């Protein structure tokens, strides 16, 4: 990719331009909304293979909207979404799942009356091959789920439900895992635990794109951070650099 996909942001060094090739997933110059006025304005989000990209920003900044746009749940007026270099802008969310994207919504992200194991099976619905190995990997990642495999997912605690939700998404063996505020409503201890797991997932080569309310903790584990304000890229840099940036700290991290 020769053109700098950095949009309207001051900091240099987008992951895409730095490596010189197309990233695993990129939503480039995305402009659009839910029908009325645009919410996103030439917003660019990208994630490299096996890396963690985090979208942070104040309330109403369009964080979740940007995520939905990348996943095809929002019609773009301008801009493109590419997965492994292939333009997928016109694909439906379902088709994107088949192409290797997995999405964990913020709420209602499990099948409550079904058992944990059935939840995982449903995650692998599109697969026709043996899913036993993937299920084993999920159980190794989240050992508590193995113990609760025959329990209805709706009866689990908030943190355990999030593990089921992430496990379900992993069952398609995705190349990109997208998480919409995975730590919303869980205790700080569970949050740390979830972040650890997310890092582990990234180490297996799966790219992670997530929206987070807990900006400080999320940027700490992020390879790439995107600070959005009113649907525009405001700062884009590595997680560490953003944490160190005095302006970012003052405006978005509370000092």
């Amino acid at each position, binding site marked *: 990719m020769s053109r700098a996909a950095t949009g309207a942001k001051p900091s240099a060094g987008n992951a895409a331009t730095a490596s010189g090739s197309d990233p695993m997933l990129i939503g480039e110059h995305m402009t659009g909304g839910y029908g009325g006025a645009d919410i996103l304005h030439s917003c660019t989000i990208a994630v490299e293979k096996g890396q963690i990209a985090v979208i942070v920003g104040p309330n109403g900044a369009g964080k979740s909207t940007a995520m939905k746009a990348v996943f095809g749940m929002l019609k773009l007026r301008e801009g493109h979404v590419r997965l492994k270099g292939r333009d997928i802008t016109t694909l439906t969310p379902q088709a994107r799942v088949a192409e290797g994207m997995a999405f964990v919504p913020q709420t209602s992200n499990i099948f409550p009356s079904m058992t944990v194991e059935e939840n995982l099976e*449903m995650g692998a*619905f599109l697969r026709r091959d043996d899913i036993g190995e993937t299920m084993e990997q999920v159980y190794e990642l989240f050992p508590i789920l193995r113990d609760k495999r025959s329990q209805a997912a709706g009866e689990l605690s908030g943190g355990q439900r999030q593990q089921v939700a992430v496990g379900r998404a992993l069952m398609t063996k995705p190349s990109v895992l997208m998480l919409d505020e995975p730590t919303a409503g869980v205790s700080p201890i569970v949050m740390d635990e979830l972040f650890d797991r997310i890092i582990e997932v990234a180490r297996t080569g799966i790219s992670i794109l997530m929206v987070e309310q807990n900006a400080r903790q999320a940027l700490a584990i992020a390879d790439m951070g995107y600070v959005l304000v009113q649907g525009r890229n405001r700062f884009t840099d590595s997680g560490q650099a953003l944490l160190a940036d005095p302006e970012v700290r003052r405006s978005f991290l509370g000092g």
Partner: protein
Amino acid sequence: MDFLNALVALTNFVVIPALAYGSQLALGALGVTLIYGILRFSNFSHGDVMAFGTMWVILTTWLLQAAGIGFGVLPTALLALPVGIVATILYMLAADKFVFSFYRRQRVKPVVLVMVSIGVMFITNGIVRLIIGPGRQSFDDGGRFIFSVREFREWSGLAEGLALRTTQFLTMVIALAVMIALFWFLNRTRTGKSMRAFSDNEDLALLSGINPDRVVRVTWVLTATLATIAGVLYGLDKGFQPFTYFQLLLPIFASAIVGGLGNPLGAIAGGYIIAFAEMTITYAWRRVLGHILPEEWLPDGLIQVLSVDYKFAVSFALLVLVLIFRPTGVFRGKSV
């Protein structure tokens, strides 16, 4: 000895009829609850769809009888059952394609779909009356009893008799087999699980790559099958009349709601609860109590809480009570 007589009378007049009626209601309620759980509306056409399926079974039965084909001691209608099921499946798939899917695509509110189903109900009702007429049809043949009152008396030497009609026995056996098959399908097969997932969380089911059109199609196929079987079993047991099937809608919905709408296990439990409630409240207990209570304790009347004409009032009252005190039903269904 008297206690035994009371038990036999109770079994003969309450337990066996209620088990048979409850099985018929349960099968009907399963169809209603499946549509509610997966397509998310109350399908008021269900009673008349039962009549529609039963009609084709009756017509086929007559054809078979005219050709001299029978099923031995079992009713010929069982041979004709597949024809009725296929006809009803085709009818419901057509109704979905030409009527329901239009409104589903517009993502209308559930109450609109309820109204649409009432339209389908009237049309179905009209079709049935046009083809077979509004009158009463009897189509059971084969052996009438597994064992009769006389046979039981001779065998046991009791004063009270007990009979098990072939249709009652068949109803219970077939209902049990159908329920086991349905639960196996919903809990063990890929398609069945995808239907439960769709019912649980439609958006996530779509994200998981579950094909909604296929889920909807399979749901109609199952519902049509259940409706036809329920209708035929009811018709064999109590005779067929289109208006009666329309009236069945109330106890069937009461069963589904009492058990918990959207919950198949609840639909079955609800069916038996409603059936036993109707039977025990409209039964004249004098005969049973006469065996147990001393003569002087026995009141003069029939000891019947309500006359049989009011049996629908029982399901209605039970429905209201459940909606007031436990709106999601005994087995915690869902409420839209």
